């Protein structure tokens, strides 16, 4: 501005005016340009077109790869796949993609691909396009045996999910859960492992006695759980590939709530061998125990936080069950939950952003979460007899057990409480879900 004034005084008027205009233009150029801040995104899921893949060669019966991908993306709650019947064309490679068509349909992404059968294998070539940027953001080939089309499809879903959201997909991960059929002497408890969409479920253990608290090892190869098969709660570790199992905690009293450490070398257990329930850390290789808590009240359900050093646990030292956090063994626990008289079974996400837990409100039990940055609590389920929350490895989804028409079922919800997706019913009550890790 001072520069303008001095110019204006030194020059004849018209010259000064011209100079002023020029300077104003320059100033407007030099000044920070207009900045528009976007602080909110669309509330709806991302529109994506998963075009049915072109096929060459015989394909196995059952769900098509593209429809499995479509269903995976739908379950995530973050995508809104386009009905194939509404597609204007069915391209299978880049040269056939007309972005304008997809833009007209309001699509942000288009996934196209081709499946080729060669012998026992099926190979997929697939490409993901950003419709607006008119760019291919993914182009890969992947193969699987003809009997594992679902594995191939979940893999593609993971790749698509990650390319778009920046987070790893969890569609190839596994679920462990327990079903109960019959009662009394006819009761049968079965430990299942299935895909996240509930498909390809396989029974890993069957028992006349209760099976509780399955927990995945970080490498996804082992499950720890509590089995009453010996007449009392004992913690077993079960190697899935071989089916070998061994007792890791068979102390007097209560042995329960196993939780693997992130490095897989130790696990948290709740033991009452010393009188009342306390949390211990078990070194798996040596079998050494380290006491983590020491309080006259019940301390149980320990879970490692994302650092691998601190733990969350449930304690009724305040009179009722509440969630506490402890930075390290022996440190002073810090209470996390205050919102109601009953908060239990903490499950922190892998990023350290939220902790999920069973939360009683009125007479109903919901799953709630607390934002660890600001302490804000929000209830994320609308069902009323909710238990056993388990967070997906990417922190985006949550699975929990609830009651539906008097029967236990599993439901997957977005971690923010958005879309809910009920897993297909299986025989009997379904309970104690545990979301497996991402296996590389």
């Amino acid at each position, binding site marked *: 501005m001072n520069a303008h004034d001095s110019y204006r005084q030194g020059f004849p008027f018209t010259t000064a005016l011209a100079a002023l205009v020029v300077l104003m233009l320059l100033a407007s150029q030099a000044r920070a340009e207009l900045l528009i801040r976007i*602080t909110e*995104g*669309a509330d709806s899921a991302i529109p994506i077109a998963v075009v049915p893949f072109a096929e060459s060669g015989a394909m196995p019966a059952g769900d098509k790869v593209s429809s499995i991908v479509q269903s995976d993306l739908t379950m995530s709650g973050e995508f809104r796949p386009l009905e194939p019947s509404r597609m204007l064309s069915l391209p299978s490679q880049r040269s056939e993609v007309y972005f304008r068509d997809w833009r007209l349909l309001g699509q*942000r992404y288009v996934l196209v691909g081709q499946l080729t059968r060669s012998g026992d294998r099926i190979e997929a070539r697939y490409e993901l396009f950003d419709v*607006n940027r008119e760019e291919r953001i993914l182009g890969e080939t992947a193969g699987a045996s003809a009997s594992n089309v679902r594995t191939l499809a979940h893999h593609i879903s993971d790749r698509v999910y990650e*390319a*778009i*959201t920046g987070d790893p997909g969890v569609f190839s991960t596994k679920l462990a859960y327990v079903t109960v059929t019959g009662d009394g002497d006819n009761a049968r408890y079965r430990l299942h492992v299935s895909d996240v969409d509930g498909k390809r479920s396989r029974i890993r253990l069957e028992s006349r006695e209760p099976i509780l608290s399955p927990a995945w090892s970080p490498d996804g190869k082992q499950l720890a759980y509590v089995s009453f098969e010996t007449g009392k709660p004992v913690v077993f570790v079960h190697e899935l590939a071989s089916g070998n199992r061994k007792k890791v905690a068979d102390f007097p009293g209560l042995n329960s709530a196993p939780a693997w450490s992130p490095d897989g070398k130790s696990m948290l257990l709740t033991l009452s061998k010393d009188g009342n329930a306390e949390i211990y850390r078990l070194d798996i290789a040596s079998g050494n125990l380290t006491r983590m808590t020491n309080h006259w009240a019940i301390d149980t359900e320990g879970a490692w936080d994302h650092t691998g050093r601190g733990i969350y646990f449930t304690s009724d030292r305040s009179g009722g069950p509440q969630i506490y956090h402890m930075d390290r063994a022996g440190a002073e626990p810090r209470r996390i939950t205050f919102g109601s008289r009953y908060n239990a079974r903490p499950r922190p996400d892998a990023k350290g952003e939220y902790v999920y837990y069973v939360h009683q409100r009125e007479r109903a039990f919901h799953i709630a979460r607390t934002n660890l940055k600001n302490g804000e609590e929000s209830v994320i389920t609308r069902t009323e007899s909710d238990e056993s929350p388990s967070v997906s490895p*990417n922190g985006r989804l949550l699975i929990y057990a609830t009651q539906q028409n008097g029967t236990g079922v599993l439901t997957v919800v977005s971690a923010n409480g958005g879309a809910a997706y009920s897993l297909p019913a299986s025989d009997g009550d379904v309970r104690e879900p545990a979301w497996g890790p991402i296996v590389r």
Partner: protein
Amino acid sequence: MKGHERETISTDTAPLKSPVVMSVALHLLIVGIALAGWSWTSPISEPEPRTISARLVSPEPRPSPVVDEQDQRDREQERRQQQERERQQQEAERRRQQEEQARREAERQAQEQARQREEERKRQEAQARERAEQQAREQEAARQKAEAEAKERERQRAEEERKRQEEAKRKAEEEKRRQEERRRQEEAERKRQEEAARQEAERKRQEAERRLREQQLEALADESRREREAEARRQQEAAAARAREAQMLSESEKYQALIRERLSQAWYPPSSATEDMTARVQITLLPTGELVNARLVSSSGNTAFDNSALGAVRSLSRYPIPSDRDTFERYFRQFTIEFNPQRLR
């Protein structure tokens, strides 16, 4: 001088005085005669009507026929004739008295006329005498008047000569005085002109000085006026520029809000987004609102986040932009959009 001329004229008209007197006398005479004539003739005319009436009522008595044989009728007629005769006798008596009166009247008139003629003759003799006397008196007066006039004329001549000499002298003096006066006037005029010329020169000098001063003042005033005007113009332009600026700004804010809304609807922050992620995309638009170019100028560090921002920016087929070209050029030709989620799902 005029008085002198009047004198001359009166001298000339003096002989006319006696005819006027004569004329007046003559008129008096004629009037006198007329009056005498009138009083003389009127008595003559008077008796005439009386003579005429006498002739009208004097029928001669005629003998009436005698009708004896008829009795009644005859007696009546007799009686009527008797009455008629009586009446005629009375009439004749009255007529005779009238004639006697007329004869006496005529005698009296004749005597009167003779007396009047004698008076007229005496009166005319007196008049003739008087005319003769009058004539003698007039002749004597005319003679005396002629003498007086001759003397008067002589006196006038002398008087005129004296006046003429006096006049000549007076004129010479007058002429001398006039010349003196003219000379004096000429001198005064010369001096006056000289003074006027001097004053004019002085006035011109002062005028020139005044003009110069005024011109200088005017130049100063002009300059300050121009400066004031220029300053006012500058201020006006600055105010207009500010107003325009404000208008463009408010216009731009409207469209900023529209763009913000459209982009918010078009932006799908990826699940990996966190509230501390910020990506900036600089975009270039055509005046039609079409996107020419979008460039990531500041990365969030998260590819999916950056891509979501770029995708959102590119998803708008046409940006809502102001129709005002200046506002467009100023704000929307090229601008930056910052993506920074504040309320993640």
